[in-house]
């Protein structure tokens, strides 16, 4: 009777593990479920040299032995349970030649369980196209294993693999990393408590949330209860373990693997070589950004003008058609202009997310992340910080939550603190309306001045975030290390459905998320601007008529003076005048002051607030932009929104922490009021000083 051995096929997802399984077993395979769970179990028989038969199990794909799903539980439970009938005589770890570094993490973990572990490097046929060369002898010596270089696609190396499996007893079981190197004191105590157990196995049992269904419960419970450290400390040790493993892998690959990208011949490599080039990569990214911002302006001007005039008409129509009264005024002067102030930006928001979504779908965004990692490292940030910083262009809230995958607490904290500097979509309405008022429409080399200004503001936000990170990295005395691993997806044509859904989802959340707040604030602002205390407000008409009695003014002019006087003596006017001394040096009047205060709820409320304030008492059919352009500086004369005050406002919004929801999320993520409070005062204080300097220089 021939001997049968158990072989476990293990590997990261997408390494071609199932192809190896098919190549080994052919038609001798069956598919079932693991007992009690719905995870697919694939097993088969393979005839090996010297009459050996192998019972091969194709285990679910996993990135590491730190299980986070049912599939991964299956892998770890099998490897920890020597009594399992399927416990492998040899583990065959399948890796992809293009992602060897990431794939080797799992290999080192399995090897440390002292199971004979064979390394299969698949997709060897792609080495030539990728410019990869491997020193197999060196790798075998360093990893203390046997390596099978195969290509399942070309059916190469399979016989050698079978031969190596058959000779599994020759494969070393020496671990790659000594568990005690992770934390000497902790692991020595652990070994003393369980002297007959394998240290790395004990460590895995302690740190896993695995439901050990088939393993001896008493033994497992005894180990799992050995927790001399808190859960957070254990997590830190796990991170330390991962870092140790990557240090080991880096050292091995430094000598054992050479990647000469200049030799790479496939299209993806050619594109990668250009798009991630240290000069051309940044130049192309810059040109792409430039094109996006220009397109945002060019393509959205027509629908924006249409929306603007439609809301102006709607406001006028409401006033003329509905019965006169307070509610009609609320609709015409409060709600409709307030909503118009948000709806008008739908085209630009939609185009921005259309481009972002296309870049993500095509696979280019991952290259940008890789490209920016080089820059980020110099400023104390991780490559992983790029994802929150880029998603911050949509909204700082999900961006801050996206920092959770940054292992190093210091890098994570810095990313949380600087992400609100990136230009979020809520700043866009403020920027767009101010730019349209103060920057001329001319072009330079085909690029509009307004688009260039918008792009500069995006760069300013990003640069401030990175520079702040640099300062924080120097100031914060927290020690930590992290590694950056990014998976580069293949380039592909974006799927229309995915892009359309993203644009719809983002635009909807922008309109409905901010829209409700703007509607509520518009109603309250209208009330505060339409009513006031004391005789000045109630007798406005007689006061103005007496004051201007000597002058020959038309009915319209008298009416304008009355509206203006009422507004100044309304609740909002009194409040605005109270805060005016603080904002006057920045070139703002009390109306802008009110808009800044109300936009603390959400930045985009700024435009809606001004639209509401300027609409109260006005009967003309002017658009928001025209009303803002017509505002006169009450002290200096001339347009209120001139170059100096406009730049001052743009800079104020670029730096100020004008978002209550972001502060709440920072508090939740840092579990402390210290960081959001610091963020609020430092960012807003800085914004005030910069806006003040800009106005005083430019006025």
């Amino acid at each position, binding site marked *: 009777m021939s001997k049968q051995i158990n072989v476990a096929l293990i590997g990261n997802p997408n390494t071609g593990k199932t192809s190896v399984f098919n190549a080994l077993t052919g038609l001798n395979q069956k598919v079932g479920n693991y007992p009690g769970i719905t995870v697919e179990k694939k097993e088969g028989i393979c005839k090996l040299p010297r009459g050996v038969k192998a019972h091969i199990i194709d285990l679910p794909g996993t990135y590491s032995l730190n299980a986070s799903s049912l599939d991964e539980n299956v892998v770890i439970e099998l490897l920890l349970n020597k009594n399992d009938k399927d416990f492998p005589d040899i583990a065959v770890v399948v890796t992809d030649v293009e992602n060897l570094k990431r794939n080797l993490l799992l290999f080192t973990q399995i090897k440390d369980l002292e199971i004979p572990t064979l390394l299969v490097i698949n997709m060897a046929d792609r080495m030539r196209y990728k410019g990869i060369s491997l020193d197999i002898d060196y790798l075998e010596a360093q990893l203390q294993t046997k390596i099978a270089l195969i290509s399942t696609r070309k059916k190469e190396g399979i016989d050698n693999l079978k031969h190596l499996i058959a000779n599994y007893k020759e494969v070393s079981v020496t671990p790659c990393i000594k568990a005690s190197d992770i934390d000497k004191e902790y692991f020595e105590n652990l070994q003393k408590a369980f002297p007959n157990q394998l240290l790395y196995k004990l460590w895995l049992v302690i740190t896993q949330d695995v439901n050990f269904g088939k393993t001896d419960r008493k033994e497992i419970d005894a180990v799992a209860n050995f927790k001399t450290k808190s859960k957070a400390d254990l997590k830190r040790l796990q991170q330390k373990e991962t870092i140790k493993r990557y240090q080991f892998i880096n050292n091995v690959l430094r000598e054992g693997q050479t990647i000469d990208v200049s030799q790479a011949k496939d299209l993806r490599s050619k594109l990668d070589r250009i798009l991630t080039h240290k000069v051309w990569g940044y130049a192309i990214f810059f040109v792409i950004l430039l094109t996006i911002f220009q397109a945002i302006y060019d393509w959205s001007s027509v629908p924006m003008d249409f929306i603007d005039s439609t809301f102006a008409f709607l406001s006028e129509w409401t006033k003329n058609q509905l*019965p006169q*009264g*307070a*509610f*009609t005024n*609320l609709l015409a002067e409060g709600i409709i202009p307030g909503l118009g102030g948000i709806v008008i930006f739908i085209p630009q928001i939609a185009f921005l997310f259309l481009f972002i979504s296309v870049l993500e779908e095509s696979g280019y965004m991952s290259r940008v992340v890789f490209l920016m990692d080089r820059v980020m490292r110099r400023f104390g940030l991780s490559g992983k910080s790029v994802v929150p910083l880029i998603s911050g262009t*949509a*909204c700082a*809230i*999900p961006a801050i*939550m996206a920092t959770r995958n940054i292992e190093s607490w210091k890098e994570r904290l810095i990313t949380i603190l600087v992400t609100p500097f990136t230009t979020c979509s809520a700043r866009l309405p403020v920027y767009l309306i101010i730019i349209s008022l103060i920057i001329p429409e001319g072009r330079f080399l085909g690029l509009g001045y307004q688009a260039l200004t918008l792009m500069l503001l995006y760069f300013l936000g990003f640069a401030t975030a990175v520079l702040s990170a640099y300062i924080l990295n120097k100031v914060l005395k927290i020690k930590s290390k992290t590694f950056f691993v990014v998976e580069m997806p293949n380039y592909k044509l974006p799927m229309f459905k995915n892009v359309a859904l993203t644009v719809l*989802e*983002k635009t909807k*959340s*922008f309109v*409905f*998320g*901010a829209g*409700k*707040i703007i*509607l*509520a*604030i518009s*109603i*309250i602002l209208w*009330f505060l601007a339409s009513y006031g205390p004391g005789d000045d407000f109630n007798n406005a008409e007689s006061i103005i008529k007496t004051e201007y009695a000597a002058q020959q003014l038309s009915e319209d002019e008298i009416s304008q003076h009355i509206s203006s006087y009422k507004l100044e003596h309304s609740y909002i006017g009194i409040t605005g005048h109270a805060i005016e001394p603080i904002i006057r040096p920045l070139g703002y009047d009390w109306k802008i002051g009110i808009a800044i205060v109300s936009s603390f*709820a959400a930045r985009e409320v700024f435009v809606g607030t001004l639209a509401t304030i300027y609409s109260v008492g006005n009967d003309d059919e002017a658009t928001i932009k025209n009303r803002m352009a017509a505002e006169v500086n009450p002290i200096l004369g001339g347009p209120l929104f001139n170059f100096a005050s406009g730049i001052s406002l743009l800079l104020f919004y670029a730096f100020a922490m004008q978002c*209550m*929801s972001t502060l709440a*999320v920072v508090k939740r993520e840092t579990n402390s009021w210290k960081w959001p409070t610091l963020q609020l005062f430092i960012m807003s204080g800085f914004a005030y000083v910069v806006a003040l300097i800009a106005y005083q220089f430019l006025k």
Partner: protein
Amino acid sequence: MNTIIQNILVFAAIVGALAFLLRKFIWKKSKSKKACGGDDGCGCH
């Protein structure tokens, strides 16, 4: 009559707006732990 109805509607709108803002920013409802960011319209879903 028309003035009274309009004033009632305005009063209702203001109370509704105030209630919405207070509930949104001051008396927040406890959120499900499964939700990723709540009702802030951040588009994180």
